[in-house]
């Protein structure tokens, strides 16, 4: 008889564990579907608004974007970047570790988006951080750019020169 009761208890025990593990299956497929459709609609509208705003605020004939990328980035611990266009300071960015990691993994940051008139301009970028010997390091790079009626994209690149064991700061104008 003890054995019989024991069996009862084991049964209860197992059922109890199963019942605590199971989550109330009160799902709502209709709501789930509504949520997914809504998310899709919001993402679409967000895209449309993004395009509208860009068309309004940064028309192609004056649009000017500056990007920053890092190749390897072991020889330079970037702290901040300052950007001047024709002598005017237009952007200052102080980097978080999260942003540095994203750059090192191949991400490209759009550091500036603005408008400039057609013609020749001077872009100066200052990079501040720590160099190969962990010493304070500040470098600048200058580029003359020609703005036409098409949008202009400039990439600032921080590259490790492994031969010289020094960081290099280059610029590239994208077509």
């Amino acid at each position, binding site marked *: 008889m003890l054995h019989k009761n024991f069996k009862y208890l084991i049964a209860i025990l197992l059922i109890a564990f199963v019942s605590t593990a199971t989550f109330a299956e009160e799902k709502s497929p209709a709501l789930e579907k509504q949520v997914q459709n809504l*998310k899709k609609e919001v993402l679409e509208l967000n895209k449309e608004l993004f395009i509208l705003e860009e068309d309004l605020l940064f028309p192609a004939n004056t649009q000017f*974007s500056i990007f920053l*990328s890092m190749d390897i980035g072991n020889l330079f611990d970037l702290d901040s970047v300052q950007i001047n266009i024709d002598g005017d300071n237009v952007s200052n960015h102080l980097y978080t570790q999260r942003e540095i990691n994203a750059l090192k993994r191949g991400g490209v940051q759009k550091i500036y988006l603005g408008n400039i008139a057609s013609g020749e301009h001077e872009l100066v970028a200052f990079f501040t951080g720590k160099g190969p010997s962990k010493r304070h390091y500040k470098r600048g790079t200058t580029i003359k750019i020609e703005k036409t009626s098409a949008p202009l994209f400039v990439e600032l690149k921080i590259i490790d020169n492994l031969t010289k064991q020094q960081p290099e700061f280059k610029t590239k104008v994208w077509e």
Partner: protein
Amino acid sequence: MILLFKQSITAVLIASIAISSFAEERDPHEVKDLRYGEALYHFYQEQYFTSITNLMVAKERDPITAQEIDPELLLGGLYLYYGLHQDASNLFTDLIEQNTSEEIQDRAWFNIGKMRYQGHLFNEAKQSLIKVKDTLSPEREAERQNMLANTYLKQKDFSAAYKAIKKLDAHQDWLTYARYNMGVSLIKSGKNREGTDLLNTISHLKTDNNELKALRDKTNIALGYAYIRQNQPNASIHFLNKVRLKGPLSAKALLGIGWAYQQQNNLKQALVSWMELRDWPVIDTAVQESLLAIPYTLEKMEKNQLALQNYRYAIDNYKKELTSLKHSLQAVKKGELLSALRPAIVTENILATEYKKELPESISAPYIRYLLNSVDFQTIHKNYLDLIYLKKNLSKWKQQFSAYYLMLKERATYYKKQQHSTKNDSRLQLVTRLKSRRDKLAAKILKIEHQQDVYALASEDEKDILSSLNKIKKSLNRLHSKDEYAEENEKYNLFRGLLLWDISTDYTPRYWKVKNELNQLDKSLSLTTKRISSLRQSTINAPLSFSGYYKRIKNKEKKLNRLLKKITYIIRSQEKLIEKQALISLQQRYHQIENYHTRASYSLARLYDRLTLPENSNKNIENQPPVDMGEKK
């Protein structure tokens, strides 16, 4: 304080999204398109909303072609992250149908398979996963084999599952999980020997990985209870003793050890294990069970007074727990849970922030922890957080509209002003006069060319000299005695000849110089004409552009207002669902403890009867089971 989600469970949810596999496989990236690089920059910072926006905008404006299919794979992964399974599926299917390379096809099939697997469509998942050939990275291939093994297990095809698991030898994590799943599945199918043999390999696992330590505990629990069911208490105790003392499964292990001793009829040792649990928090189901097992066993040992005391102790604790659950139910109904779950700060990586936050001290918090650790609930909660962020994003756009209208109005005003001043600008009429002068000049040059009129191209100095020579010639012609002036005549002829020589020999370069200048003039005039034409065109187009923008803005504003209303409504529905799930979960617990309470009360009454009524004193527990165990459930 309780973390909102246990790390392990969160890891399961987060790891399940396809984008994590994307990041592992494609890191580091060579960026050939700045827009893709920008999407990656946000993706790596878990700013998935910005990342998906970047990719969608690029796709709309001018699709990224320089990065092969990486942007598409990333977009597909992000669709999955937002639960847009249909869009993700369409995208991956497109990649397959585009006659792409084997590598791309493999990755697309892998993602489709994983998506179907996560949607519990195991047969469909299997059909997709078996289409993958051999181009996946070793880590993804291991994941594929693990998923395949699980789909075979769902169909009880153990030999196919075993073959898939055999391919995981080089990946200890996947191998351990796969063995666990197969072991449990075999036991559930009655293949105890094969199942326990497989689980045995995990039971001894030496590892520093916390996830694997937790899996090892789970394995030992599964083995322990499997041996109890097979009536092998020694083996059961052996495995249950391996469960870590300080872990989420320690109470379950102690309870099982008690049952195993009970099975051996070693009631004293059974009590030792259960008494260990006596003062543990009653919220744990293993503790609830042990509270009833203790007096029951004491009663069997004829320690009736102690049994009475422990029945009473159990009843008191069940009562307290029931009261506590009642309060929790009320608190949830009053919105306490939603207050705890509602994010204080809504940021783009709201999911990561919220999963790390701690639940505030509250009545329902201890119970909610159990609810929050369920994957189903996490899905509902993730949707809820996604919607809250999306609503914030919509609200942010809404605030922009007044600025857009103002900007448009300012531009239109400025344009009107400019248009007025341009209309009256006399310089616009100048070009017609210039054109007429140019035509006269061109005709003159043509005449020079036809007549080979070298003098027409003489310089001002040369013209002066020529004029002087002409005067001299006239004077010479007026003189009567020409012979006396023969020398002067000769000089005149010489000078004129020299001048003609100079002009004639220089005619061709002079002519081309003039022709070239005419071409330059034509170009300048053409540019000026174009600019004037463009100015006239913009005079016509600008009002259309303003009205076009106005219509676009108005249209988006209308759409946004509609979506804002909808999202507010659906967030409320999602909140109701969260509350409903919490209430159902709490009610289930309530009924379970109520059941224990009833059984304890019944056993107490029965024991009193047996002790107080002489005719019942010889009836022991074996003849009359103390509780209606098993019947109620």
